[in-house]
């Protein structure tokens, strides 16, 4: 137990110390984790920790990441990507493997080993690239999308490659029972004939898709009714882990399975809730994964052979970048996006570790070669953040394009977030949709959601008072947040959080009463709408008309009343103090007294009346006479 705690503490402290520094320096979190891992490596060596097994565990972060990426991608979009997925991805893996193998063969290497090494190095690092792209907000651009297609293809390609590698084994060196060290120790398909295995595999995928489509909604609704956050988190985890397990059992990539499940759930109302529940796990596991990459560097080997290894690393990066840039040209990526694609994917990746150990156990690779290969892979991953920095600081500015937000339809994150879809928020949502704006609606009543879904509204389950859920709903990119939830205290809490942390967001908050207005104003909301005020004013105006007032007069009087009342409310909100009861707040009491004087019924409604009476007042006969005399005098003088 203490061993586990010590290890956890070590990793946590390294991450906590290094990542904020790296981010502050603009290097990105990945580099921070990698450096933290390097710093840890002597201690881990001392404690005789098995870094590789931790790395396998931490790779589950990649699985979660793919699930989250899937959640962001509607099935329709995935289908639109199919050409790039197969074309770009297939060509990248094929050409890179061929190029590297060709060069190695030219250097007198056995062709079987050369092909294996080529395939191993053709893989890129899904973890590093996706994390960095997402962090820098580059995932939505053209280059980011192309990179994602390639990474997804590689994920799928690992499975046929795993099948292919044993065929490359040296003649006469057959080695049964090879285990890739990546998959689980059991398999549903190992003892089946080919067609049976294919059937089981297809069945498993169908199960994931069907389950995602039909099973999740009732399940999540049932869980949501319990209103227990941790059970929802547990369900989400259960879901992801279960799919990963199923995929491993049938010999498919768990990342691929969870990605598919994510895509299936992309339209679900529980999407944002799932996103915010899984995201912390993804972050921690990927962090751990990056640290293990850093910690796994064999410095002894590196120093011994410094220049050859560094040279080979750069050669690998150059070769991969060359292939990528050619593909970028063929697939018409424009401007700096081309280089983002070319440099971003130029490293070798974590799948390379899996493939190399698999290749060794299948006697394809000589045992002495694998550690060096792994070192090259690790070093190329280490250099990736540097390449991203090169792209951001040098290449993109050189293209000097204004950063256009392309492919806006990729993200369903609306520019307006509406918290609470009841009588109040529902109207706001309908108005915004009618005017063609995109909205993201969060509501926390499962029953309400079901009804809205039936009517075709785009609403999500979730408690909007949770910052992580607002984050998942896209508060960073939102222009507007409408808080229309029932609980007044929660509304104040949301205003406080958002106005502090996302000052760019315009907040419109629904207020219960005057007191609530003061609280919301105090918390930082400058657009407070009293929920029954406007309808009360309309009732007042109708009363004026019913009592015989001219409708235009009634309208103007109502407007004047609104103006005077809002002004008074604003003035009072300025002096209101949450710490002092209103009756003991001298400034507040003073203001109310002043207002009572002018608002008293007998006093002709004071300022309110005066404001109303100005306008279209005819000039007096004296006015007319004055003008006449002045103009005639001027003319006579001229």
């Amino acid at each position, binding site marked *: 137990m203490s061993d586990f705690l010590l290890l956890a503490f070590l990793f946590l402290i390294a991450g906590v110390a290094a990542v904020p520094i790296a981010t502050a320096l603009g290097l990105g979190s990945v580099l921070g984790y990698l450096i933290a891992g390097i710093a840890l490596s002597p201690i881990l060596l001392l404690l005789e920790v098995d870094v590789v097994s931790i790395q396998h565990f931490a790779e589950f972060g990649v699985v979660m990441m793919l699930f989250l990426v899937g959640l962001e991608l509607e099935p329709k979009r995935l289908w639109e990507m199919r050409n790039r997925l197969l074309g770009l991805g297939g060509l990248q893996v094929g050409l890179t493997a061929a190029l590297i193998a060709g060069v190695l063969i030219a250097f007198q290497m056995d062709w079987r080993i050369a092909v294996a090494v080529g395939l191993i190095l053709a893989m890129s690092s899904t973890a590093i690239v996706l994390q960095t792209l997402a962090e820098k907000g580059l995932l939505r651009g053209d280059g980011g999308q192309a990179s994602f297609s390639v990474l997804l293809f590689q994920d799928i390609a690992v499975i046929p490659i795993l099948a292919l590698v044993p065929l490359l084994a040296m003649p006469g060196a057959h080695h049964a029972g090879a285990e890739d060290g990546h998959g689980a120790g059991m398999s549903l398909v190992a003892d089946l004939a080919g067609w049976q295995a294919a059937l089981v595999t297809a069945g498993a995928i169908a199960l994931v898709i069907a389950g995602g489509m039909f099973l999740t909604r009732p399940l999540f609704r049932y869980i949501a009714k319990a209103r227990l956050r941790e059970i929802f988190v547990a369900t989400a985890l259960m879901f992801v882990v279960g799919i990963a397990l199923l995929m491993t059992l049938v010999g498919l990539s768990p990342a691929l399975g969870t990605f598919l499940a994510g895509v299936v759930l992309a339209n679900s109302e529980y999407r944002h809730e799932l996103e915010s529940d899984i995201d912390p796990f993804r972050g921690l596991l990927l962090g751990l994964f990056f640290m293990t990459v850093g910690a796994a560097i064999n410095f002894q080997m590196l120093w011994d052979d410094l220049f050859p290894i560094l040279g080979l690393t750069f050669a690998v990066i150059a070769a991969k970048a060359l292939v990528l840039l050619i593909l970028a040209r063929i697939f018409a990526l424009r401007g700096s996006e081309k280089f983002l694609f070319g440099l971003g994917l130029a490293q070798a990746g974590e799948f390379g570790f899996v493939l190399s150990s698999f290749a060794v156990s299948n006697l394809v690779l000589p045992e002495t070669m694998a550690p060096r290969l792994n070192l090259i892979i690790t070093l190329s991953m280490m250099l990736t953040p540097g390449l991203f920095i090169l792209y951001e600081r040098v290449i993109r500015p050189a293209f000097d394009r204004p950063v256009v937000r392309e492919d806006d339809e990729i993200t369903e994150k609306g520019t307006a977030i509406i918290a609470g879809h009841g009588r109040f928020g529902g109207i706001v949502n309908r108005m915004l949709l009618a005017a063609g704006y995109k909205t993201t609606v969060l509501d926390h009543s499962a029953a309400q959601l079901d009804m809205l879904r039936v009517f075709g509204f785009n609403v999500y389950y979730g408690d909007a008072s949770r910052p992580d859920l607002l984050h998942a709903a896209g508060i960073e990119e939102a222009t507007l947040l409408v808080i229309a939830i029932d609980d007044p205290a929660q509304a104040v809490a949301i205003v406080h959080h958002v106005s502090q942390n996302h000052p760019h967001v315009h907040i419109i908050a629904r207020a219960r009463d005057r007191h609530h207005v003061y609280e919301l104003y105090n918390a930082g909301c400058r657009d407070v709408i009293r929920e029954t005020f406007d309808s009360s004013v309309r009732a007042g105006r109708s009363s004026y008309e019913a009592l015989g007032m*001219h*409708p*235009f007069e009634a309208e103007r009087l109502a407007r004047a009343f609104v103006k005077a009342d809002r002004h008074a409310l604003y003035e009072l909100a300025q002096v209101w103090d949450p710490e002092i009861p209103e009756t003991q707040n001298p400034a507040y009491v003073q203001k109310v007294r002043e207002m009572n004087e002018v608002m008293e019924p007998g006093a002709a409604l004071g300022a309110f009346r005066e404001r109303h009476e100005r306008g279209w*007042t005819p000039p007096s006969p004296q006015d*007319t006479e004055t003008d006449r005399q002045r103009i005639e005098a001027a003319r006579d003088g001229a």
Partner: protein
Amino acid sequence: MARLLHYAAHPSPGTSSANSAMLKRVRGLEGITSLDLYAEYPRYDIDIEDEQQRLLAHDVIVLQFPLFWYSCPALVKEWLDLVWEHGFAYGRGGDRLKGKLLMLAVTTGGPQEAYGAEGYQHYELRTFLTPFEQAARLAQMRFLAPYVLHGALKTEPEAHALGFLRLMTALRDERLDLRAAESADILTHDTLPLMGIN
């Protein structure tokens, strides 16, 4: 009988004497549609379709308003801007008002002698009303001389209001000498070119 549509427009009926009296006189008269434009659209949300149908259903349109800064009150302009669309009142296919009559009933604060080259308002009253006259021409309507009350703030409005009543019934009953009304400069309660009874 001509179908007559009467719009009265005063944003502050409480402070108006002449315009209120005029509206009161003709309201409820048989065969005359009389509307208080500011009561109809207190929030300026003019219904273009409704208003166009109203125009099509009548032969004579009378706009009654006080002269504010040498023009009509804002809502009358808004009504004109929105309802007299191209394709309806003018432009391609815009001949739906063709042949109808347009007449203004205007009250001014200044006295009669103020309007003219010698007066302190410097221009003839008709000069200030040329936008309406030209609008009628563009819409292929006949534009009659305006029915005017000068010095409305100092004058007892009753005679003018009664004259307005006579004018409106004459228009309705087609007893107004249109040719005379077209060629006159302005009409007042004692210069109405009525036919038949004189």
